[in-house]
């Protein structure tokens, strides 16, 4: 409990510090002005979300291989946290897009692949609610999770492969891309803060799933009486 409280406190402090740095340390961008400050929150959430899905994918593979319950708990926990982070991306993106592009949404490659990613992990969580038997639920959702992860590299490379409405990458975007050094430091700090927040939420969600398994065992014992 103590370590979880410390992790939660560190996550909150880092997120507050990242927001402060985004508003007061990062210089104002020339073209978009203050609006560009959404970038530090929007992109950091997107990266943390994709890493949560990567963790889910690894846990799904490990479950299929080793059939350990803890991998199932980790899979569902990271999928749910990844989904929350992607929801934030899908909300903050249109808020940024409206003043920048004049529209909230367009079916371009990045936006569409991100929306499909969101739908895939909603389906992953829905699938789990439809299967009663724990081992069958864990195996089928692990297999679905492995399939769902195919969309993550598609989301990442969509703005590199297709030039549509969404801007080209400014990080790891090849020649001509890149950020002002101070902006880059603030961005990397925001990414760190969002990853620590994601780690805290995954740990909390994992403990919930562990407790749910304990309840299932007790229920079966009670029914056997």
């Amino acid at each position, binding site marked *: 409990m103590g370590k979880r409280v410390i992790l939660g406190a560190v996550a909150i402090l880092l997120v507050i510090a990242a927001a402060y740095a985004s508003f007061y340390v990062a210089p104002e961008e020339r073209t978009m002005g203050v*609006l560009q400050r959404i970038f530090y929150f929007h992109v950091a959430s997107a990266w943390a979300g994709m890493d949560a899905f990567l963790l889910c994918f690894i846990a799904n593979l490990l479950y299929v291989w080793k059939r350990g319950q803890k991998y199932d708990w980790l899979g569902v926990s990271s999928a749910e946290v990844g989904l929350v982070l992607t929801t934030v991306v899908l909300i903050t993106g249109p808020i940024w897009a409206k003043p920048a592009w004049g529209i909230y949404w367009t079916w371009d490659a990045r936006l569409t692949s991100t929306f499909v990613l969101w739908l895939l992990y909603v389906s992953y969580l829905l699938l789990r609610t439809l299967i009663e038997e724990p081992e069958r639920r864990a195996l089928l959702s692990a297999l679905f999770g492995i399939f769902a992860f195919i969309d993550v590299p598609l989301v990442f490379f969509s703005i590199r492969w297709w030039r549509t409405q969404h801007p080209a990458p400014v990080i790891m975007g090849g020649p001509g891309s890149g950020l002002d050094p101070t902006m880059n430091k603030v961005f990397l700090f925001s990414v760190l803060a969002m990853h620590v927040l994601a780690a805290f939420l995954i740990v909390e969600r994992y403990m919930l799933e562990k*407790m749910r398994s304990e309840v299932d065992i007790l229920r079966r014992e009670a029914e056997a*009486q």
Partner: protein
Amino acid sequence: MKNLNSVFAAYLIGWGVFFLFYISIAKRTNDLRAEVERLKNSLPRGK
């Protein structure tokens, strides 16, 4: 400070989503904790 409202909206809604998610985890944890207690009490002692 054109578009400052959009920036604040993005940050506040984003934090709101994280906060609601954490509240939902805390609520589900409390419900399960109560269920564990109820089930433990319903089982014969020594279990």
